[in-house]
Every structure is written in C-alpha cells, then in structure tokens.
C-alpha cells in the first residue's frame, strides 16, 4: 500500500526532531533534579526515534529498518527508566535528596 505525501518533507521531521533533541540537551545540562534529568533524557530518546522512523519511511521503504530500530529504542528507554528510577530511589533513601550535585563522591 502506498500513500501520497507531497506536502510534508523529510526535512520537516528532521528539524522538529533536532529541536526536541536540543531542548532535551538543555534540560539534561541545566536541571539539577535527577527525575527531571531523566525526563529530559526521555525527550532526547524520543527525538531520535522520530528521526529513525522518518528516515525509514522516506528513504528505506522496502526494508524499513528504522522502524525496527525505533521499536528497540522504545524498549531500551522503558528498561532505562525503570532502572534509573530504582537508583534515584536508592540515593534518595540514603541521602534524602534527589539533587545530582549533592551526590558527587565519584567526581574527580
């Protein structure tokens, strides 16, 4: 099955995904709360998945490898969220804080 798609180009999706990714980078660097940093990482992963799917649909219609990649990105993101929140919970129980600046023993 094929659908005509004249108005929205590949560039549209690449640009929106770049914007979302950059907002995520800003969040990861500027936020100090561990949960908020995790949420910014989710934004970045999402932007990457959009990129994968856009390239798959526009340039790889036969094999759509990008779609498979996006499925794996979503899977790994889910695993990462669960594990990261476990660690954050652990840190919070030991230190009573979720601020990443106050957990800096391994910082050189």
């Amino acid at each position, binding site marked *: 099955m*094929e*659908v005509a*798609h004249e*108005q*929205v*180009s*590949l*560039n*549209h*999706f690449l640009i929106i995904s*770049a*914007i*979302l*990714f*950059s*907002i*995520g*980078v*800003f969040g*990861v*660097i*500027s*936020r*100090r*709360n*561990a*949960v*908020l940093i*995790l949420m*910014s990482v*989710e*934004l970045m992963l*999402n932007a990457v*998945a*959009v990129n994968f*799917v856009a390239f798959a*649909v*526009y*340039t790889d*219609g036969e*094999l*759509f490898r990008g*779609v*498979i990649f996006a*499925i*794996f990105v*979503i*899977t*790994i*993101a*889910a*695993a990462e969220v*669960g*594990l990261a*929140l*476990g660690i954050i*919970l652990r840190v*919070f129980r030991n230190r*009573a804080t*979720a601020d990443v600046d106050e957990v800096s023993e391994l910082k050189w």
Partner: protein
Amino acid sequence: MAEAIFYLLSILAIIGALGTVTSQNVVHAALFLILSLLAVAGFYILLTNEFLALVQILIYGGAVATIILFGIMLTRSRDLMPVTFGESTRLPGFLAGVLLLGVILGAVLNTNWPRYAEQVTLVPLTAIGDALFKQWLLPFEVASVVLLVALIGAIVISRQEEGEA
C-alpha cells in the same frame, strides 16, 4: 492538510518539551512530558506508522509516565518546593542546546536528502512482525533479556534491606 496537522503537532510537541525543561513544578513537568510524547505519537501516524503510534501511547504515555510520576511522589522531601535550575548550569545548558541545534540544522539544511518521497510506503503491520521475528530475531531476544535484567535489577536496587529505616 497533512502540513497543517504536522505544524499543529509540532507546536504541541515543542510546548510540551519546553514545559518539561522549564516548569518549576515537577508534576507539571511530567504532565508536559506526556503532552510532548503524545504529540510524537501523532508524528508516527503522520509517518504512516500506526503500530509505532500505538506502542508510543502505551509505553510512553502509559507506563513511563506512571513510573515517572511514582518516582516524583517517592522523592519529594521538601514538599511543594519549586524546583529551579542550578545557577551555574543554566547558561552552559542553554549554550549547548542552541549550538547543537545550530549544528544539526546546518547539517540537515545543507545535505541533499531525498526530501520529497513521491510515494511514502505504508509499512504493514504483518511486515513488521515478519521482519522482527525473522531478520531481527537475535536483537529481539537480546532486548527481552535486557528488559528482564532491568526488571530484576530495579527490584534489587530499590528493595528495602533488613535493618534499614
């Protein structure tokens, strides 16, 4: 038509993303994140990939959002304190974001992609299943092991040990 929907979804996604990184209230930030993730599900439908849109809504809009809200609930020490930026990290974060955006936009606009596919292929669900269980079987199995390890790891890490308050 497709263009109008695309711009509407873009506005929603960007509002959600900006709200996530700038909101002072952690719960509001999580709700903005859900908005952004649902807008991305709309992008998948626009990219003729309704299966991914469904997965996005189920996993991100449902599971991940719930886990994050639970995380917020369990790590709130100073109740209702506004969460602000670190004073020393706000400017570097902004600069990094803007510079990265500039680099990526420059690369995107100056590269000659096949910009307008005359025909966008609609990927059928059966084809995705076929590819996933034949061509990509090993990564699929590895992904399930990763999920299992993450599940057990999360339980072990966050479990209350004996003698702990």
